[in-house]
Every structure is written in C-alpha cells, then in structure tokens.
C-alpha cells in the first residue's frame, strides 16, 4: 500500500447483463500521472465514478488513500479532486463565488478561503478574471477553473475525466502543463483521454481499456514492446545506394523495408545506428536522415484494436 494511492482489485460494474467494468485490477502510485485510454464506452468514466463512490460497485474492492469509497465516501472525497467530463459551474456566479461554495463544502477555515482561492486561480492563470461571471468563460477557462478547484482543495489525488476534450491545441498544451504542475506538487494524477499523443507526453504509465477490461498496462515503451514487438525501429533516408543490400549482414538488424522512394524503415533488436551510418557512407551513399523512432501510443493503440478486432 505504501506507494499506491489507489488500489483496485476485481472491480466490477454491471448494467443489467452488460459488464461495463469487468473485474479490473489497477494500481496508481504516489506522484505519478496515470492515463486511462480506450474507445468510447470502454468503461473509463464508470471506473472513475466508482473510485469516488459516486456510483455503486457491483463487486470487487477499491482502496483510495486507505479508505473505501463505498463505506467512507466522505473521507475519499475530502482528499481526492475530481474534474468531470465537461465540467460545469454555476453560470450566474463568479469564479471566486463558485470556489467559495466549494470551499465551504470542504469546510476550509474561513480565514484561509480567500488566500487559497487566489493562489489556486493564479496557478491556472485565471486570477485576472476572478470576479467575472463563469457564464463569460470559454471551455478552456472552465476546464482550468476545474483544475483550480483541485488545487484549492489541496487534493492528494486528482482524477481528471477527458480533461482535454474540446480544447484547441494551445489550450490543450496549457492544460497539460497544469497537470504536470499538479504532479510537481506531489499530486498523483489519474486521467482519461482520447488524445493519445498528448497523453503520451504527460503520462508515466497508461492502461488500455477495452470493453470493460484492462487490455494492457504499463509505460508507453512497455506497451510498445508488447504490441509492436521488441526492437528499435529506425528511419533511414538516403540516396545513391541500395540501402537494403548495404545493410545486409549487420548484426542485430531484423527487417529492412522500403517505405517510399529514398526512405526505409529498419527494425533491430539493439541500437544499430552507428553501424548503419557507417555502411551507408562507406558504400558512397548520401545519408540525409537517421532517426530513432519513438514508439507512439497512437500506433500501439491502433494496432492493438486492429488485432483485437481480428481476433473477435
């Protein structure tokens, strides 16, 4: 337990006969950013709601910071911040008034309320609109206000459901920066998202959801090894040589495939960049690009679901 802020064992949710969440196990470690990924209807939101005790579980156990959300929801909700999918605020109230209401619900001592609100709004760069009505806020500002609420709450765990959905690239970038900020201040973050490349950039570990099951779990590199196979993919761009023939015989190279005119994709079981460069140059070719391809979550995701569909 010491290092896990959330422990889920055999968590089950039935909607009639449908298994929305099918006996999953999850561990979220202290101080990490954990991503829940999966297609629509995979069960991400349902899982999140069960972690907070906002919907009943049909089986299994959950432990959040040492508390059981089913029996001790108040203790859990006092320590966990939640940003729901498409968060809403009271439009007729200002940003400050909205947070004051939350602060009262949290029973924050009156003397601290003002300071904590101001500080929280500063951390999400909303302090200049503190007394503006939320009805004038854009989607991105509301989302940031939701983060400010979590900051004000001084939550130990932040659970964010689709925090970047509906945001433009710049707003997404800013929001992800704020999520990194949460992590920096020691908060463990659990987020669900569709924006894979963005998720990849912030998440320490991810879990791939499919039809209520956790299909894969681990770091992005681990998942890539599992789904795409182990190995270092390289991209080579060169002219004046037949790359495939030149590279023949380098120890470790597994496949060489021409992707387009002058561009090859190489998979090796170790780092062969130096050897590849040397061969091409000594064969008289002009090497214009030699890149170590980071495994992309997008690729893992697409490939995984392709295979899942084939298997079905």
């Amino acid at each position, binding site marked *: 337990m010491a290092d896990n802020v959330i422990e889920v064992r055999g968590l089950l949710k039935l909607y009639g006969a449908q298994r929305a969440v099918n006996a999953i196990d999850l561990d979220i470690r202290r101080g990490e950013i954990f991503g829940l990924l999966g297609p629509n209807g995979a069960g991400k*939101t349902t899982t999140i*709601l069960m972690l*907070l005790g*906002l*919907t*009943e579980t049909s089986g299994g156990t959950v432990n959040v910071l040492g508390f059981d959300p*089913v*029996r*001790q*929801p*108040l*203790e859990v*909700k*006092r320590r*966990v*911040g*939640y*940003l*729901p*999918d*498409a*968060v*809403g*605020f*009271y*439009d*007729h109230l200002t940003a400050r008034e909205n947070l004051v*209401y*939350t602060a*009262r*619900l*949290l*029973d924050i001592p009156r003397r601290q309320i003002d300071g904590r609100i101001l500080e929280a709004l500063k951390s999400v760069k909303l302090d200049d609109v503190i007394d503006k009505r939320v009805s004038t806020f854009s989607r991105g500002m509301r989302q940031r206000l*939701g983060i400010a*609420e979590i900051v004000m709450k001084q939550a130990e765990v932040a659970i964010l459901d689709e925090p970047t959905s509906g945001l433009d690239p710049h707003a997404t970038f800013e929001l992800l920066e704020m999520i990194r900020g949460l992590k920096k201040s020691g908060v463990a973050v659990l987020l669900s998202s569709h924006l894979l490349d963005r998720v990849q950039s912030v998440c320490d570990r991810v879990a791939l959801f499919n039809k209520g099951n956790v299909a894969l779990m681990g770091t992005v590199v681990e998942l890539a090894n599992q789904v795409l196979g182990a190995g270092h993919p390289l991209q080579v761009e060169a002219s004046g040589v037949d790359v495939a023939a030149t590279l023949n015989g380098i120890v470790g190279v597994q496949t060489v495939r021409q992707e387009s005119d002058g561009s090859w994709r190489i998979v090796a079981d170790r780092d062969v960049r130096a050897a590849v460069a040397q061969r091409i140059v000594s064969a008289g070719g002009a090497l214009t690009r030699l890149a170590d391809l980071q495994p992309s979550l997008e690729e893992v995701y697409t490939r995984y679901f392709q295979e899942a569909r084939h298997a079905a």
Partner: protein
Amino acid sequence: MPRSREGSPFTGLGPVFLKEFADHLSSARMMVLMLFVIVFGAFPVATSLQTLRTVVDPNSFIFLRIFTLESEQVGISFTAALNFIIPLMAIGLGFDAVNSEFNRRTLSRVLSQPIYRDALLLGKFLGGLATLAVALVALWLIVLGAGLLLLGVPPRGVEVARGLSFLVVAIAYGGVWLAIAMLFSVIFRSTATSALCALGVWLFFFILWPLLAGALLVGLAPSEIRSMDDYAAVQSMGLGLMRLSPGTLFSEAVLGLLSPETRTLGPMLPSQMRGAIMGAPLPFDQSVLLIWPQVTGLIAGMIVVFAAAYVIFQREEVRA
C-alpha cells in the same frame, strides 16, 4: 445502496442551504413570484379593509377578518387566494432544483466534494422553504401594517397568536408543494417537463379532484340513505376524499385558526352541538387542537413526498 456508510449525512448541509437561499433571494424568479403574490393578494386585502372600516365592534376578531373576508367585488378572500398561489410559488422555487444541476453539469462536481446526496437534497428543500417563509412573512407583515394604518386599532394578542399560527400552517402547506415540485425535478431531467408535471398536479387538485371526489362518492356511497348515521357516514367519506388534497387541509386549518367561532371541521355531529353556543369563539388552544390533524396531515404529506424524492435521487446516476 450505501452499505453502512460512515460520516454524518448532514455534512455540508449548511453551505448548501445558504447557497440555495441566497440564490433564490437574488433571483429574478423570486421577484416575479413576489409580484404575483402581491397582485393576487392586494385586491382581496384592499377590499376587505374597505368593508371592515365600517365595523366598530372591538370584540370581533377584526384583524383576522382581513384575511378571511370574502368581499363582494372580488369574490375571494385573501386566504383563498393564498390557497392556490402558495403552490405556484413553491412550484416556481422547486421545479428545477435537482435537474438544473444535471443540466448545468454541476452535480457530479458538487457531489465529488465531501457531502452526501442527503445533504444536497435537504439543503435545497430547506433553502426553498426558507425563501417561501420569507415571502410569506413579508406578505403577512404588509397585510398587518395595512390593517394597522387603515383600521387605526392595534391587533389583540390572541389575534397575533392566531395570525402567527396561520403563517406556520401556510409555510407547511408551501412545504408540501415544494416537496412535490422537487420530486419531479428529481424524476425528470428536463426542467420544462418537471414544471409541467408539478403544474399538472396542481391543476388536478384544484379543478379535477373536487369533481372526481364527487363522482367517487356517488360510486362508493350506499344506494339508500336510511338514517342520520348513513348520512353522516357518506358525509365523512366525502370529506375524507377531499382531505387527500393539501388545499383542503390548508383551508380547513385556516378556517379553524382565523375564524375562532369554528367548532368543528366538516359535518357537525349532534354530540358536538351539545352545549355549544353558536357564534361564541373557541379559546386559542382549543382551535389549535381542532386543526391539529390537518397540520400533521400537511407535515406528513411533505415528509412522504420528500422521502420519495430522496429514494429516487439516491438511485440516480450522477453522470450527465
């Protein structure tokens, strides 16, 4: 359902109550409702004051008659006007209590704070009830003030006591309708649908129920009435049916409180007549005893409807 959950169900009740109360008081809707009440209440009061200025008997309960006098010009007393306006106010305050939180997508955020659904629902109910109480007290004071100015005599102590009891009954009556409106706000996600349903219940009790009760009575009553007892039985059955409507309970309670000469509500039995001098007012405590069943009926109705809303709300999914 929560299995042996920990922590008080009332955690967070105070903040919810205060927020709801403040929201109501500052809302445009409240202005409209108050305007409504003043317009509908002003005419009966003004005309009864006109009539009462000519009455000089200091022993009559002249202040109470401001509330109950049915003047010829308007044809409706102040309390009768309240009988159907209070439900409208309560519906206006409660019809979107819960579903608006869904629609604004604030519900899951609020419920992710350390608070049970119990406190949210009860806080909203009490906030609405307090708003209603403020409106009714204001109205009551206005009427009393107008009476003081125009009649030139202060109310007697017993009149004030009866008037205050009337206020309490009126608030309880509003509570029943507030609970009904909130029940629909829990059942329906659309605020328009829930408003429509609450208004439907209101229309049902005020227009359809008297007719329906009459028809039911014809069906249920014995075909022949042979004795006084038979007659009394049919009478009380009819009354029982009518008393299922909160409006009936309210008007009976008002009658008992504001017309002190009322000895019984409903058909009078010969045994009750014995020794009663018609026209002699009952002492205040006797009147309160008389209307006690009506008041408990109103409060019980309020609790039953609120409990129904509570049970449904507990089972509802929070996700929008």
